[in-house]
C-alpha cells in the first residue's frame, strides 16, 4: 500500500519536490508499487504532447570539441484548456536524442517488467541507396522526429509509465532535468542489472511461458530484420525501374524534333514518362513509413526479450538463494550430527587435521543458524519478488501483444493501401501515355 500512496502523491503533485522523486527510487527496489491495480488515467488523456520541430545546434561537447547536433521541440498542452476553447500557447522545450536515450534507460531500469517502447534508430539502418545514412540528412531527421513523438505518445498512454515523475519532468522541466534523473541513482542499478543480463546463466526450472516468449522475441527480431533487408533491396530496384523511364521522356523530346507527324504525340508521351519517373519519390517515402512501423517492432522485440531476461535473472537469483539455503541447512545438519553427507573440504580437513572443539562447533552453528534465517528471509522475498514480477510482467506482456497485433495488422493494411495507390497511379500514367502514343501517325 505504501507504494501506491507515493504514486498518488506523484500524480497529484506538480511540484518539483525532490523528496517525491527520491521516493520513486523505492519503486525500483520494491515491485509492490505497481499501478496495475490502481485506477489511473494515462497522462496522454490529460495532456497533448507533440514533437513538432527539429533544429540544428552547435556547441561544445564533454571533451570541449565543437559539435553539431539536432534538438527537437517538445510541446505540451493540458487537454482541458483546449476543450474549454481557451487556445493556450503550448509549453515547450528542446531536447536532443541523447536525452531521450537517458529517459528510456531510466524507464528500463525503473520498470523492468514493462515492455518499454523503443526509440527510433540511433543510426540509419536497412538503407537503400537513395537515403543517406547520415544523421544530419533532413529526411532522416524528419523521420526521427516522428519516431520520437511516437515514443513519447506511447509512454504517455501507458498506464504505468505515464505516471512516472521523471517522464513528466522530461516533458515539462527545461533546466536541470538531467541532474534530477541522475539523482535517482538509477544508473547504479542500471550497471548491475545490465551486466547481469549480459552474463550467461542457466535457470534450472525455467518458466515455460517466458521461454516461449523469449523464443518468440528472437523469431520476431530475425524475421523483421530479414523483411527490412529484402524490402530495402526491392525499394532500390523499384527506384531504378521508375527512374529509367525518365530517359524515355528526354529521348522522346529530342526525337520529336525531327518527326513531323509523330512529334506531338512523342512530346506529350515524354511528359508522362517524366511524371512516371518522378512519382517513385512519393511512393518510396510512403513505403519508408511502413518500414519505420516494422522497425519499431524490431526494437520492441528487443524490449520484450529484455523483460524475459530480467525474469530469468530474478528466477536465477531465487534459485541461487534457495540453493544456498539448502546447502546451509545441510551444513548445519552435518555439523549438528557430525556426519558428513556430502564431500566438503572442511570435512576432509577436519578428518585430516582433527575435529574442532565443541566451542568452535557451537560458534559455527550459531553463524549458520543466523545465515539460515537470513537465507529463508531472502528466499521468501525473492519468491515474492518473482511472483510479483511474473504477475506484473504478464499483464504488460498481454497488453503489448494486443497492441502489437493491432498495430501490425494496421501496418499490413496500410501497406496494401499503398500498393493500391501505386497501382492506380501507374494505370493513370500509362493510360495517358497510351493516348499520346495512339495519336502518333494516322
Amino acid at each position: 500500500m505504501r507504494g501506491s500512496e507515493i504514486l498518488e502523491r506523484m500524480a497529484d503533485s506538480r511540484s518539483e519536490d525532490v523528496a517525491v522523486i527520491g521516493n520513486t527510487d523505492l519503486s525500483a527496489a520494491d515491485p509492490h508499487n505497481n499501478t496495475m491495480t490502481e485506477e489511473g488515467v494515462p497522462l496522454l488523456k490529460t495532456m497533448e504532447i507533440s514533437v513538432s520541430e527539429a533544429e540544428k545546434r552547435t556547441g561544445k561537447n564533454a571533451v570541449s570539441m565543437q559539435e553539431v547536433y539536432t534538438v527537437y521541440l517538445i510541446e505540451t498542452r493540458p487537454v482541458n484548456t483546449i476543450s474549454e476553447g481557451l487556445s493556450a500557447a503550448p509549453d515547450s522545450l528542446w531536447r536532443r536524442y541523447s536525452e531521450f536515450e537517458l529517459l528510456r534507460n531510466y524507464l528500463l531500469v525503473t520498470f523492468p517488467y514493462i515492455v518499454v517502447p523503443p526509440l527510433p534508430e540511433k543510426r540509419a539502418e536497412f538503407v537503400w541507396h537513395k537515403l543517406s545514412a547520415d544523421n544530419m540528412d533532413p529526411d532522416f531527421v524528419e523521420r526521427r522526429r516522428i519516431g520520437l513523438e511516437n515514443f513519447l505518445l506511447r509512454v504517455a498512454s501507458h498506464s504505468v509509465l505515464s505516471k512516472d515523475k521523471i517522464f513528466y519532468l522530461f516533458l515539462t522541466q527545461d533546466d536541470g532535468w538531467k541532474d534530477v534523473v541522475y539523482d535517482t541513482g538509477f544508473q547504479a542499478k542500471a550497471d548491475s542489472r545490465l551486466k547481469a543480463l549480459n552474463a550467461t546463466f542457466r535457470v534450472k526450472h525455467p518458466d515455460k511461458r517466458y521461454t516461449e516468449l523469449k523464443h518468440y522475441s528472437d523469431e520476431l527480431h530475425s524475421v523483421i530484420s530479414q523483411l527490412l533487408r529484402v524490402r530495402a533491396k526491392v525499394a532500390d530496384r523499384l527506384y531504378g525501374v521508375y527512374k529509367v523511364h525518365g530517359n524515355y521522356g528526354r529521348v522522346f523530346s529530342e526525337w520529336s524534333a525531327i518527326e513531323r507527324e509523330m512529334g506531338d504525340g512523342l512530346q506529350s508521351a515524354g511528359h508522362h514518362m517524366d511524371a512516371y519517373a518522378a512519382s517513385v519519390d512519393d511512393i518510396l517515402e510512403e513505403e519508408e513509413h511502413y518500414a519505420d512501423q516494422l522497425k519499431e517492432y524490431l526494437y520492441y522485440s528487443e524490449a520484450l526479450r529484455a523483460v524475459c531476461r530480467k525474469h530469468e535473472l530474478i528466477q536465477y537469483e531465487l534459485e541461487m538463494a534457495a540453493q544456498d539455503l539448502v546447502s546451509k541447512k545441510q551444513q548445519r545438519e552435518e555439523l549438528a550430527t557430525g556426519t558428513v553427507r556430502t564431500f566438503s573440504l572442511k570435512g576432509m580437513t577436519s578428518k585430516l587435521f582433527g575435529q574442532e572443539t565443541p566451542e568452535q562447533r557451537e560458534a559455527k552453528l550459531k553463524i549458520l543458524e543466523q545465515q539460515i534465517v537470513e537465507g529463508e528471509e531472502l528466499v521468501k522475498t525473492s519468491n515474492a519478488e518473482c511472483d510479483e514480477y511474473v504477475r506484473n510482467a504478464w499483464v504488460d506482456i498481454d497488453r503489448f501483444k494486443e497492441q502489437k497485433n493491432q498495430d501490425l495488422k494496421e501496418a499490413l493494411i496500410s501497406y496494401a493501401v499503398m500498393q493500391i495507390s501505386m497501382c492506380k497511379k501507374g494505370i493513370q500514367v500509362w493510360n495517358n501515355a497510351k493516348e499520346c502514343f495512339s495519336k502518333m501517325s494516322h
Partner: protein
Amino acid sequence: MESESTSSSAPVNGNLAQTVDDLSKHMLELDEDDDLEVFSKDAMLTDASTFSASMPASPASMINQYKHEDQDIKDVFITVDCPENHVTSIETFVTYRVITKTTRSEFDSSEYEVRRRYQDFLWLKGKLEEAHPTLIINPLPEKFVMKGMMERFNDDFIETRRKALHKFVNRIADHPILSFNEDFKVFLTAQAWELASHKKQGPGLLSRMGETVRAVAASVRGVQNRPEEFTAMNDYVETFSQKMGMLDKIAQRIVKEQKEYLEGMKECGPVYTLWSGSEDQLVEPLKAIAGCIDNCCKVTEEQVAGLSENQVPILHEYVLCAETLKAVLRRRDNIQAEYESKVDALASKKAEKENLKHTDLSFVFGGFLGKNTEEAKHQKQQRLDCEMKELKEEIGRLEDKLECANSTLKVDWERWKRNMQADVRSAFVDMADTNMNYYEKCLAIWESFLTSQKTEVHVEKDTDS
C-alpha cells in the same frame, strides 16, 4: 546492277525531266529477270505474267496503286516457323520452315514449303540490295550475338530470330517492287539443291569486284551537288539512328531492372510466410500478404515477358533499320558521284579536244614518234571523239539511273516512314497496354486483400458483441 555490263541502246537523253509517272510505270513493269535492261524507257513488257491482270494500264493509276498500297490486295502470305537443328559433319545450324501461299499467276503453285537457314536470308537480302540499291529493305536480325556461341542455339534467341525473319520476308512480300524480284521467288519456292545452284549463278566474281571498286571510288570521290532533300534525309537518319539506339538501350535496361525487382520481390513472400509461423492472431493477414506478393510476382513475370517479346525487338529492329537507311543513302550518293565523275570526265575530254586545236604539243608527240603532226592530231581527235561519244552514252545511262534511284528512294522513303510510324506507334501502345495490364492485375490482388481483411474485422466485432 547488271545494267553496267549490257550494252545500252538508249540514246543520250537530253530530256532530263522524266516524269514520276513514266518512272513508276517502269518500276511496275520490272521483269524478274535481271539481265533485262531495267531502266530502258523503250521497254514495254507485254508479258502478262509480270503483273496481275487487275493492274490498270495507265501510268497515273499505276502510281495511285503504288501510293495506296495499303489498300492493295495482299496476295502473298508467308510464315516462318518450326526451327530445327541440323547437324552435319562440318557444322550445326538451324533451319526454319518457310511456307508461302499465293494467288499470283507467276508462281507455278499456290503453296510452297521449303526449309531455309539464316545464310539463305542473308543471301536474299544481298541480292535484293544489288537489284534495288535505293530501296529500303527491312533489316535482318543480327548475325552474331556477342555473348557467346552457345547463344545461337538458345530457345529465346531462336524464337526472337524466327520472328524477325518472319517479319523480314513479309515486308518484302508487301513491297510493290521487291515482292516481284526473281531471287525472292526462288527463295520462296526452290528446294535446297535448287537454291544452291541458283546461288552459284549470277555475276561472276570479277564483275562483282569491278562493281565494288567503282563503288569505293565513287564514295571516295564524294558527291558534289547533293539535292537538298537527300541532305535532309541524311540529317534525319543521323538523329533517328542516335535516338533509336538510346531507346533500344532504355527498353532493355527497363527489362533488366524489372527482372531484378522481381527477384527481390520473390524473396518477400517467403519471409511473411515464415513470420506467420511465429504468430497467432496475425497468421491470417501475414499469409494473405505473402499470397498477394507471390501473385504479384507472377504478374510481373508476365509483364517482363510482354516487354521483351514485343517492344524490345521492334526498337532493336529500327536501330538496324537506321543502318540500312544510311547504306541506302550512301548508295544513292555513289550513283550520283559516279554520274558526276563521268560528267567531269566528259568536260575534261572536251577541254582536251579544244586544246588540241590550239596547241602544238602534238608536234612534240609526233616528232617523238616520227609521225606527221597533222596525222597525229587527227588521230588524237578521233580518239577523243570516240571516247566522248562513249562517255555521253554512259552519262545518259547514269543520268537515268540516278533519276530512277532518286525517285524510287523518295517514294520508298515515304513508305518506310509510314511503316516506321505504324510500328513505333504499335510498339509503344503495346508497352502502355502491357504496363496497364500489369498494374490492373496487381490492383485487383491488393484490393482483394483489403476486402478479406475487412471481413476479418467484421467477424471480430460480431464475436465481441
